[in-house]
């Protein structure tokens, strides 16, 4: 099992290198720094000097891959590839366009992102699984049918609607919580409760339906018939036998997103004015701050790969067939 995990870890290295090269190609080869400077400065005010200045301020004035002017190892290190892409491996993301250190910004914004994402994730998982179990328990009845119809309807509503509608109803009409903002400590609660509820509500349709399908697939298996032939009540069959087995496919979809919770939710954070990584990303996109977008792409991939690894490890906990072979 240890060999298995080590092997998965080793496999992550070429993938990270691939992601790094891909972002490099996307940000520096598809468009040259000159193009970006021209766009950032606006078409009218473009002069070669202005472009040079823009590039020099941001360190984009180096050669892409090979600095023939530099001596020794600096020929490799004093390039855009090395200073902008390779250095991300050691957590050096450079500075954003507004001059702030990206790495510091990211660490300070992680807290608010997690404060939203973790409760949403945990609560959403719990509610959706309970709801799905309920539907499966009453499968092939009117309740099940109505539940599925409700799920499809909830799935068909845009996530933007949940946020806008929720803000309007809860904050504007009922004046229950502030419409947006963020505070530290206990104060955070009143800012967090609405985005969390909306987040749970927005995801419930799709995930309930997915869990229901998994449960139904499990429930038609032979071992369930064996369990019933023992005389077990349906409740025990569902919780002890079906749930345990359904956990395996559920883990595939669920564990992988846990690390990416750090990334925050783009929409929620931006609508509710929460100073997390999601709103940071959106602001960067709107300001066309390529350095920040590039960093977030890289961090996102690292977290995703961590998620894949966590999924593999979680299998060894949930599935004895993986653990013992």
């Amino acid at each position, binding site marked *: 099992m240890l*060999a298995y995990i*080590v*092997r998965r870890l*080793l496999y992550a290295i070429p993938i990270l290198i691939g992601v790094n090269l891909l972002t490099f190609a996307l940000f520096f080869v598809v468009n040259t720094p000159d193009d970006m400077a021209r766009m950032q400065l606006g078409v009218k005010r473009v002069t070669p000097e202005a472009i040079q200045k823009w590039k020099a301020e941001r360190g984009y004035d180096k050669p892409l891959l090979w600095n023939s002017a530099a001596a020794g190892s600096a020929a490799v290190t004093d390039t855009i590839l090395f200073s902008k892409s390779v250095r991300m491996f050691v957590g050096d993301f450079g500075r954003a366009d507004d001059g702030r250190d990206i790495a510091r910004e990211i660490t300070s914004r992680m807290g608010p992102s997690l404060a939203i994402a973790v409760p949403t994730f945990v609560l959403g998982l719990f509610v959706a699984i309970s709801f799905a179990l309920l539907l499966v328990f009453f*499968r*092939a009845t009117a309740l099940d049918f109505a539940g599925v119809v409700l799920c499809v309807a909830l799935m068909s509503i845009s996530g933007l609607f949940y946020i806008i509608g929720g803000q309007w109803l809860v904050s504007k009409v009922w004046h229950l919580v502030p419409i947006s903002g963020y505070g530290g400590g206990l104060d955070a609660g009143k800012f967090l409760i609405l985005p969390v509820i909306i987040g749970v509500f927005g995801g419930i349709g799709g995930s309930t339906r997915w869990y229901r399908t998994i449960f139904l697939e499990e429930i038609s*298996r*032979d*071992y369930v*018939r*064996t*369990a*019933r*032939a*023992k*005389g*077990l*009540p349906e409740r025990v069959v569902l919780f*002890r*036998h079906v749930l*345990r*087995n359904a956990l*395996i496919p559920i883990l595939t979809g669920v564990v992988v997103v846990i690390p990416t919770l750090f990334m925050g939710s783009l929409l929620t954070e931006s609508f509710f004015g929460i100073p997390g990584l999601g709103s940071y990303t959106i602001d960067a996109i709107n300001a066309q701050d390529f350095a920040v977008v590039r960093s977030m792409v890289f961090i996102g991939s690292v977290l995703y790969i961590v998620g894949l690894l966590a999924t593999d490890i979680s299998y060894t906990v*949930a*599935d*004895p*067939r993986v653990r*013992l072979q």
Partner: protein
Amino acid sequence: MSLLAVRDLAIHIPQGDSGRGVGVARPVDGISFDIAAGECYALLGESGCGKSMTALGLMRLLPPGARAASGTVSFAGRELLALPESSMREYRGGQIGMIFQEPATSLNPVLTVGRQIIEALELHSALRGEAARERAMELLAQVGIPDPGRRLDEFPFQLSGGLRQRVMIAIALAGAPKLLIADEPTTALDVTIQAQVLDLLDELRRTQGMALLLITHDLGVVARMADRIGVMYAGQLVEEAPRAAFFARAAHPYSVRLFAALPDAQRRGGALATIPGSVPPADTQHGGCRFVERCGEAREDCRRAPPPWRELGAGQRLRCVLERAPEVSTKVGAGNTATTPVAPPLLDVQDLRVHFPIRRGVLQRQVGAVRAVDGIALSLAPGRTLALVGESGCGKTTAGKALLQLIRPTAGSVLLDGAELTTRSTAELRPLRAKMQMVFQDPFASLNPRLRVGEIIAEGMRALGVGAGDTAPRVAALLQQVGLRPEMAARYPHEFSGGQRQRIAIARALAVKPQLLVCDEPTSALDVSVQAQILNLLSDLQRELGLAYLFITHNIAVVDYLAHQVAVMYLGRIVECGSADEVLRSPRHPYTQALLAAVPRIDGAGREVVKLEGDMPSAANPPAGCHFHPRCPIAGEECKRDYPGETRIGATQVVRCFKAA
């Protein structure tokens, strides 16, 4: 008083989605029978007759949609169908235990064996904690699982198929049931394991005084186990009789034909009796006797009304208007057709090896190999049949595919008509592919569902350029040759039954005019009456076309009927080979002897029994010395050291055993 009394039980499944009109499928349509305490009652019939549905109906475990529409099931005086669900649960597992066909899927894969047994104990007894664990250990020991303490904490995937079925039995026994329902309990198991499990069931029945409802399609199993037999056909019982009477003089035309369709040595060279057509689907509306379409003796009045029950005496009764049981003529063949081969061999295999690497560790280095086929030699003359016999996992299918180069062998030589195959590239092999073809086991997986039958049959001709030009006349001729109608070429595979599909698969192989046909268990997925049709077809084709067959099977009766030569495989090697007569009549290897003795026989006569303990070891880690020695009753010291060499006995028989000399 009987323990279980079933009266007029009918199970209906509404067919909602059939266009207009709502039809109803009746997989079980009014059956009645009794089982006395301690009795073994066998429900016998082909697939689709409603046997399993009956069992599930008794337990009230019917699949969604199906329901018991009428009838009563009284168990020890209580009416089960009227019980509320909560009381029914006490009967399930507590009074009536049940085991299923597929031990591989019937156990929960993520719970330990112990957990699954204790769960049943806690439900039906007062045992808890350590006491329950003790009892679970006793149960495992009782069903013959060695080292039960360790097994309790293992998961089902760590057990072999035979052990899993024993665990299933242990679970069923946990509630000390008065009746055990066994639904095809040994169909998924090898014959030697089947013999072990049947022995266990029989012993439990005797020691626990437990009644047994055995559901099976296998006449041999019935002969070995049953006190009384009910023959089911299309949702109804058609004959009921005590074992002795049934095997002495089966009366219903269906029962008679089931017997006549069984292959065995006496019928070799002749044709087996077949039952034309197949079991009617469950939503058929019946006017008269349900068997009338397939019955050779049907009269005018058979179509008008369902025949009533008729007593024959001695507990035998049947639903048939015929006064006398029909004589089904099975042309008895010449018996032994073994003539000495004259032609040079068509196929000559020397030292064929197929090893699959086992990779482990961080770098996935090869740490060993599964020796699926480990040095076998075969030789087959034109127009002859060589049967490669062995239990699942012995490497026989891999061997068949390796000699067709579908799996590239690791080492060895395969000469087909003098041409070496193993050294040729894929392109160089192509011209030789027309000489050798394969018929596969599963008729449902061997035909592409998206192609018409005509396209399927023509595929090989087109790929190999056989019979260039218009393929249609040739396809039509082939369809006729395998007993289908030419216009069927325009249809899709899903419109055909299993037997018809297997005919199509044979036509596809014949299309390129092969000399050698590798048949990989071609009848094991088919019912016995359909099996007879296919076996007849194969022997007709051999006579007409002079085909050579390499027949891969685990079914000894088929081998006995069909094969000229036999090679017995165990763990990647051939342990005994020779003419069918020599190997099957006077087996010299202890494994061959055990294999033959394990086959349940319909005449009830047992040979002197050589019981095998345990399971076949893994081909990744075969035992040192003779691979068979850990299970061999006569193994000596030398057997643990060296693999025995070949010993020639008689004209053709070769054995690899130290003790056979």
